[in-house]
């Protein structure tokens, strides 16, 4: 299990390869990657602010919870902060389990919690100004299924 919060880009391919190489019993591996959407070309950059200390702590608690709920061989969360450009990779989650149901459920659970319970805030910068991304009701509602 690993959690990394970093400003630097990560290499999705290399991370996927390394995660897979560490598996010994898994039959299923899922990755999720979040990308900066450029909203039809208007977006110049995205600034991601976070709460150092609480971020790592909150994500580690989510991973621990996922491990108690599903049969996971491994899990990885990488989340960036700082300035990102359109289509840059923001974050990734990887999960591995004996069966696909657990790997998918754990990845979706982690994503739902990262969306609404990890202390990150996104600001979109466009030619006509900047705005903080508002939390969506549907993201809060998504937590209820777990």
């Amino acid at each position: 299990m690993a959690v990394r919060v970093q400003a630097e880009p990560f290499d999705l391919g290399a991370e996927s390869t390394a995660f897979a190489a560490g598996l010994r019993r898994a039959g299923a591996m899922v990755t999720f990657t979040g990308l900066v959407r450029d909203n039809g070309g208007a977006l110049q950059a995205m600034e991601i602010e976070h709460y150092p200390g609480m971020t790592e702590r909150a994500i580690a608690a989510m991973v621990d919870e996922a491990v108690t709920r599903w049969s996971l061989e491994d899990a990885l969360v990488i989340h960036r902060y700082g300035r990102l450009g359109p289509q840059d990779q923001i974050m990734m989650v990887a999960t591995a389990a004996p069966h696909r149901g657990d790997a998918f459920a754990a990845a979706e659970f982690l994503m739902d919690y990262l969306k609404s319970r990890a202390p990150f805030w996104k600001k979109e910068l466009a030619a006509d100004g900047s705005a903080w991304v508002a939390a969506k009701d549907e993201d809060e509602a998504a937590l209820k299924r777990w």
Partner: protein
Amino acid sequence: MVLDVLYFAWVRERIGLGRERVETTAVTVADLVAELSAREERYALAFADLKSLRVALDQDLAEFSAPLAGVREVAFFPPMTGG
């Protein structure tokens, strides 16, 4: 009691700083919010709508009714938008 008070995202922007030390006798988070709001307009503005705010005590999410006894770090911020 002396607290480290942290602000993030538009709360930080409205108040104009990211972190300060606050000497207070507030019993709950709500008391602290009232105290800060009474200080200056920019605080009152940042705390105008508590429903659009979240609070963490020593890096754990908490309610505005939570007591501050034993707490060292209080953080105010909008709903999170990670992932």
